[in-house]
């Protein structure tokens, strides 16, 4: 809970940056070195605000870590947050403001795909690297430009493709899909249908729910009786209603297997009354919210830095559930930026093109403290990163990881080669 009229975070973090400069940095960072400014396009208000809060928290932790380890190429790093109200029009204005008015070297952080789509053209015009944390298939599909990259999170197309084999093998082959009637849903609609068909399965119904819908029961009657798997990817504030109503609808009677994307439950406690219906059902997770027994060696350090406990809730408030499967992308993106800037010998805005070229040259991204979600491969042609995915089952109200995909499950042929485009 923030104070109603607290000073803006941008002001605060500038202050914090100064503190870091004064006290915490190793001697290699000269006090005279001008900081690298990273503009962060933040969903602080609007429909994406739940995610925005955790994005801010995670990237701030990453910033602290990077500065404590000497910054980027010996220069301290500063992040300037600017609210885009989760609106594409304001998004473009924010890219403009961060770049032109605040003098940021790069802009990063956007989640919602319509904001990405609205902002990317402006980033291209300003020729500023724009690193999105959105998981949309808009980057690798070729819809954007040379300046827009997604180096911190695997896109939905890849996530979905890697789920299909497991779903077909373990849950069933006749799938009914509920998806929101907007871009995030379309990625699922288009790519899961193909992926499940490749496994010998089929979609028996695809039901698109219009935005702003608050009640869903009436649509459940459209679920065909021979459905084996109910695939749901709803997002937004009405998600809980969706799941609760599904539970009321099926009740104690026979029901299909449920498979969902955890996007439905990001920032939501899986033990919430009314969600008992989800017990035993499966979810995609990019980064398991509840720390698995076989978690990698860097998992604990990441959780501590961000302030998240082993259940994926805030250490200061056990009711405050993280958007765990998405927020790591801001951490990894900032580290990716550091790696690329150091490789490019980046000194200032004049080197922005060199910076993008350096990013495009990166391929292997091994597991490490800078990549707590796991090892990744970056495709410089499509500007998209690829990593492993997880499937978790709700057991006793908790998400328990039951399967991890291979990187190859999520690969698909390139749809674009940005490196051939002009800057």
């Amino acid at each position, binding site marked *: *809970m923030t104070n109603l009229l607290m000073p803006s975070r941008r002001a605060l973090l500038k202050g914090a940056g100064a503190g870091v400069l004064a006290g915490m940095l190793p001697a290699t960072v000269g006090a005279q070195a001008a900081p690298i400014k990273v503009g962060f396009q933040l969903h602080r*208000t609007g429909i994406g605000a739940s995610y925005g809060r955790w994005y801010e928290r995670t990237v701030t932790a990453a910033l602290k870590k990077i500065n404590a380890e000497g910054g980027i190429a010996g220069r301290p790093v500063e992040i300037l947050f600017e609210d885009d109200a989760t609106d594409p029009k304001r998004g473009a204005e924010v890219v403009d403001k961060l770049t032109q008015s605040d003098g940021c070297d790069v802009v990063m952080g956007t989640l919602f795909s319509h904001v990405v789509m609205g902002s990317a053209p402006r980033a291209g015009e300003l020729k500023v690297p724009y690193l999105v944390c959105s998981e949309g298939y808009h980057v690798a599909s070729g819809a954007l430009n040379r300046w827009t990259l997604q180096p911190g999170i695997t896109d939905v197309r890849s996530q979905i493709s890697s789920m299909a084999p497991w779903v077909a093998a373990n849950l069933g082959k006749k799938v009914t899909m509920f998806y929101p*009637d907007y871009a995030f849903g379309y990625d699922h609609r288009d790519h899961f249908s193909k992926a499940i068909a490749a496994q010998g399965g089929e979609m028996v119904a695809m039901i698109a729910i219009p935005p702003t819908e608050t009640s869903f029961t*009436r649509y*459940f*009657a459209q679920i065909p009786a021979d459905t084996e798997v109910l695939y749901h990817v709803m997002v937004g504030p009405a998600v809980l209603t969706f799941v*609760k109503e599904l539970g009321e609808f099926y009740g104690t009677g026979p029901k299909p297997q449920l498979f969902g994307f955890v996007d439905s439950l990001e920032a939501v406690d899986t033990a919430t009354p009314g969600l008992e219906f989800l017990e035993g059902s499966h979810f995609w997770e990019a980064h398991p919210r509840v720390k698995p027994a076989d978690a990698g060696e860097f998992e604990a350090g990441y959780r501590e830095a961000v302030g998240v406990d082993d259940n994926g809730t805030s250490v200061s408030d056990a009711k405050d559930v993280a958007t765990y499967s998405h927020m790591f992308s801001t951490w990894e993106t900032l580290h990716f930026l550091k790696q690329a800037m150091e490789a490019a010998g980046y000194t200032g805005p004049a080197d922005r093109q060199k910076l993008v070229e350096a990013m495009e040259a990166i391929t292997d991204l091994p597991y490490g403290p800078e990549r707590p979600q796991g090892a990744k491969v970056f495709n410089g042609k499509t500007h998209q990163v690829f990593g492993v995915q997880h499937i978790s089952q709700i057991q006793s109200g908790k998400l328990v990881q039951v399967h991890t995909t291979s990187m190859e499950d999520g690969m698909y042929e390139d749809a674009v080669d940005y490196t051939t485009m002009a800057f």
Partner: protein
Amino acid sequence: MSFGPFLLLALMEGLVTAAVLALAASGLSLVFGVMRVVNVAHGEFYMLGAVIAWFVTTLVPGPAWAGFLVALAVAPVAVGALAAAADRLVLRRLDYDPEATIVATIGLLYMIQQAALSFYGPDARPVAAPFDWRLQLPWFGYSGYKLFVVLAAAVVLLALWLFMTRSKVGLVMRATQVDRDVAQAFGIDVDLVYMAVFGIGAALAAVAAVLIVPIQQAHYLMGHDPLLLSFIVVIIGGLGSLRGTVVAALVIGLSDGVISMFFSPTLAKILATLLVALVLVFRPQGLFGVRDR
């Protein structure tokens, strides 16, 4: 699912939608009917009611119904007081000028939304229903609380109707609605009536929210849809006609439910929206309104 149960489900859903619409619109019907001002912040009063319900049910120990009852008492009082203060401090000074009121209530909307975001946060949070009961039919299950909402809507609207027609305060309000100047000439303190109407209208929105929030979630942006839908219901019903509001809610709710049986969801929404628009086009005074001049 075969047609019969399908239709039954659609009708039940339509009835619940109608109850939600009628509840959300009741306060606006009062405010719009008596004061003839467009209160853009009405949906935010609704949202505040839901958010207060969350705080109250979280704080009050004991069974779910205890917190629910406390919320049902606290939320309308708090929200009503806030609205009355807004009337006194802002709207009265604008002399309820229709255009200035729109700008002022847009300002209020921003302020309330930001306050909710700052103090309550951006997450959607569930409020437990006062009781946990599920109706299991042979074909599908249904929430017992949803059916309770239909009943509650009937009770609230009946109470409002009795209040407006049988009580002295209600009479004074109706007199003011018919003719402000004449009411003033008869010694009615019109300023006080307006403040009371604005406060009661907001309190009704809060009551509606407390009743509805267990089947939805409390979220700081949740006021947007109820505002639009309430306006539509109130206008279709005919300004200031409580009976019209109820009928309009039923018409919109049931047609929404039944249309959603036959088309894909988004297409169904498009058709339902156009249908409602055309009702107004061919009956501009609403279902139960009197044509102005």
